[in-house]
């Protein structure tokens, strides 16, 4: 059996050193603006959470091995080596103290994409054996069992049965030639089965032909969170094989944010070829149905409510307006948060932080950012579109004793669908 070693980690760092990384490091003017953009810094006030500082190990490899000046400094014995101790110390910065939310990348005056580099730095950490237990476990379960939460198809089949019995709808499984193949996240299967029911209801009304694959229904990708392209590739590939076998035209990413990043943006690069199908986020699809007049709703929510923009879907995925179009269809009193859309603050649990038990205390601290945003607004309900955000926000609200229902947008739409006029 092989093992993680410092040497493998160093090699992985070297592999990650491409033109963008090099130009980002050489462009950084140490202005520190990224710190103010990062919720881990703003909520702790601890300068070690300055985004660019989290990259010190990767930066050292770059400087020492890829720059002339660095080589010179190494020769003169002026530079400090990357050691196991360094990686151990930085592990908590790079895994517990970063959700890959990408907010820092938005403010950098020289355009450095810091979250891109953190994602790459994790490749080195994981190869050297420095990844949090929680995400390691999730990755193991994802590869061996098929889902990070250990959900196997029979569990999904049981949920499907329940939903079918409760609602009288059918949920198609393994239907070849359907237009859409829906993916789910374990979180949705186990904690929010309403999502499944909502899909069935909406698709029935809109006349969308769809299916779930019994071989690849799980969309979450721990490989991306732990930062291993090798693991991520295997997980993406399962979905690709299943979708191509069922010959679907589209694969629907579930609400879950990082699942969307994995399947839509990183996937083709990981497997090294374009897909035979297109990937759409469920909100994009719903908005399309809406503008085509295929989504008919009735009644409205009159609560004062707001929307939490999930980083991966909105800031990094570009799905900015669909959630608002959909919300305005069924809500009369929707207000945007300060810093909404692409500048929204992360819930604190993305990028694998929620799967990392050790990070809980820090995560709760970071949640104060969301709390402040909500306090400013004085709303009664929070809507979001990522199962992970939803869970993290529920936990955070509980911790800070704030009473507020957290609702998934897809379900909200489903609740207002016009009942079949038979």
């Amino acid at each position, binding site marked *: 059996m092989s093992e*993680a070693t410092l040497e493998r980690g160093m090699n992985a760092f070297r*592999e990650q050193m491409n033109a963008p990384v090099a*130009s980002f490091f050489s462009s950084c003017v140490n202005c520190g*603006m990224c710190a103010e953009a990062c919720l881990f810094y703003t909520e702790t006030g601890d300068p070690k959470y300055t985004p660019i500082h989290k990259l010190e190990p990767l930066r050292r490899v770059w400087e020492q091995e890829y720059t002339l*000046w660095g080589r010179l400094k190494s020769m003169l014995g002026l530079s400090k080596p990357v050691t196991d101790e360094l990686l151990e110390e930085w592990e908590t910065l790079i895994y517990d103290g970063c959700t890959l939310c990408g907010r820092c990348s938005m403010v950098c005056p020289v355009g450095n994409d810091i979250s891109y580099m953190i994602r790459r730095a994790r490749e080195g950490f994981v190869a050297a054996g420095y990844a949090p237990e929680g995400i390691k476990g999730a990755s193991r379960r994802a590869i061996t069992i098929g889902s990070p939460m250990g959900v196997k198809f029979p569990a999904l089949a049981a949920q499907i049965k329940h939903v079918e019995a409760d609602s009288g709808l059918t949920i198609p499984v393994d239907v070849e030639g359907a237009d859409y193949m829906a993916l789910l996240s374990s979180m949705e299967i186990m904690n929010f089965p309403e999502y499944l029911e909502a899909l069935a209801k909406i698709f029935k009304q809109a006349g969308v032909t769809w299916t779930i694959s019994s071989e690849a229904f799980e969309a979450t990708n721990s490989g991306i969170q732990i930062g291993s392209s090798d693991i991520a590739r295997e997980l993406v590939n399962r979905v690709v094989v299943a979708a191509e076998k069922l010959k679907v035209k589209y694969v629907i990413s579930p609400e879950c944010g990082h699942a969307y990043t994995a399947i839509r943006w990183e996937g083709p690069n990981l497997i090294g070829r374009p897909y035979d199908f297109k990937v759409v986020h469920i909100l994009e699809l719903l908005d399309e149905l809406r503008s085509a007049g295929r989504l008919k709703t009735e009644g409205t929510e009159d609560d004062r409510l707001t929307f939490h923009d999930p980083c991966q879907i909105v800031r990094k995925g570009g799905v900015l307006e669909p959630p608002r179009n959909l919300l305005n269809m069924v809500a009369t009193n929707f207000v945007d948060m300060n810093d909404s859309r692409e500048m929204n603050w992360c819930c604190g649990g993305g990028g694998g932080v929620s799967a990392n038990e050790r990070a809980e205390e820090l995560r709760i601290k970071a949640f104060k950012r969301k709390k402040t945003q909500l306090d400013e607004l004085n709303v009664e309900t929070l809507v979001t579109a990522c199962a992970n955000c939803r869970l993290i926000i529920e936990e955070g609200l509980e911790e800070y004793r704030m009473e507020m229902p957290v609702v998934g947008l897809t379900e909200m739409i489903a609740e207002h669908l016009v009942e079949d006029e038979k």
Partner: protein
Amino acid sequence: MADDRKKLSMTLGESLRQQGVSRRGFLKYCAATASMMALPPTMVPAIAQALEKAKRPSVIWLSFQECTGCTESLTRSHSPSVENLIFDHISLDYHHTLQVASGDAAEAAREAAMHENEGKYIVVVDGSIPLANPGYSSIAGISNLQMLEETVAGAAAVVAVGSCAAFGGLPHANPNPTGAVSVGEIVKDKPVVNVSGCPPIPTVITGVLAHFLTFGSLPELDALGRPMVFFGQSIHDRCYRRPFYDKGLFAETFDDEGARKGWCLFRLGCKGPMTYNACATAKWNQGTSWPVESGHGCLGCSEPDFWDAGGFYNALSIPDSDLTRKTGYVVGAGVALGAAAGALNRSTRAKAAAKHETVTIDDLDKKS
């Protein structure tokens, strides 16, 4: 703040040593600077001595009517040591784009830098100045003209970075709605160096600063106020496609046989023969390439009024053969080193990829 003051009063040599730069490393840097500025090797000790004693100079960077491309160019600089060192060791006290401070605090920083370094600071300007109406561009309620005049009053020298500051650039192009003028048209009583280009080559910007630090004076300038060492020869004189030009072999379209064979781009509008700049030798992006090498003719961006010089794809009317202004431009050792480092980096990365062992779930743990 007090800390900053102390830093400011340190000499460059002290500051470098505090950062762990050894005497040997420092001399290497001086040698690179000398070669970049085409100075004889005997000058190295003199440079070292001068830099060693130099105080961290204060630099105030003003941005007027511009696109920020010049700042981008500078912050993307890669040259082995010069830029890094210079920028770690000057005190960039005011820069709209890069500074954290805003509003009154920013203006206060500028004023503080001006008073504390009266007569000694360098003003870098990018962008042109509108004279038609101050409202076209103002900062903190101060018009560009006023800010330039008051900041330059106590300066030792002014560096006009980019074609906008040097010659008016795009804002000055016909019909020049804002009445844009260059820095040199306003500042008459202080030395002004034009570092033109759209954007200028980063090494050239810092080279000028290094020269100032070393000799306390500005480098020798050409008739347009540009440093001779960098602008002494035309693109055409240094172009690697020149042999084809001399043989009369020209590409006629961007995808014909000639273009594929790397023939001269003159007939496709290359302005190389009338353009003075260091692109062909210093190159761009860490010595990767330059416009003509990537298959496009030179636009002539470092020349006055290049926007109004006819279409970018119109060939100059006569092949100009009498433009060989021979000056002592020496290809910097830094450039050669840069290219070598690039090749080395590619191989480091390729080797790492070859050594990649797939990460599986069985090797997430360290066994010890």
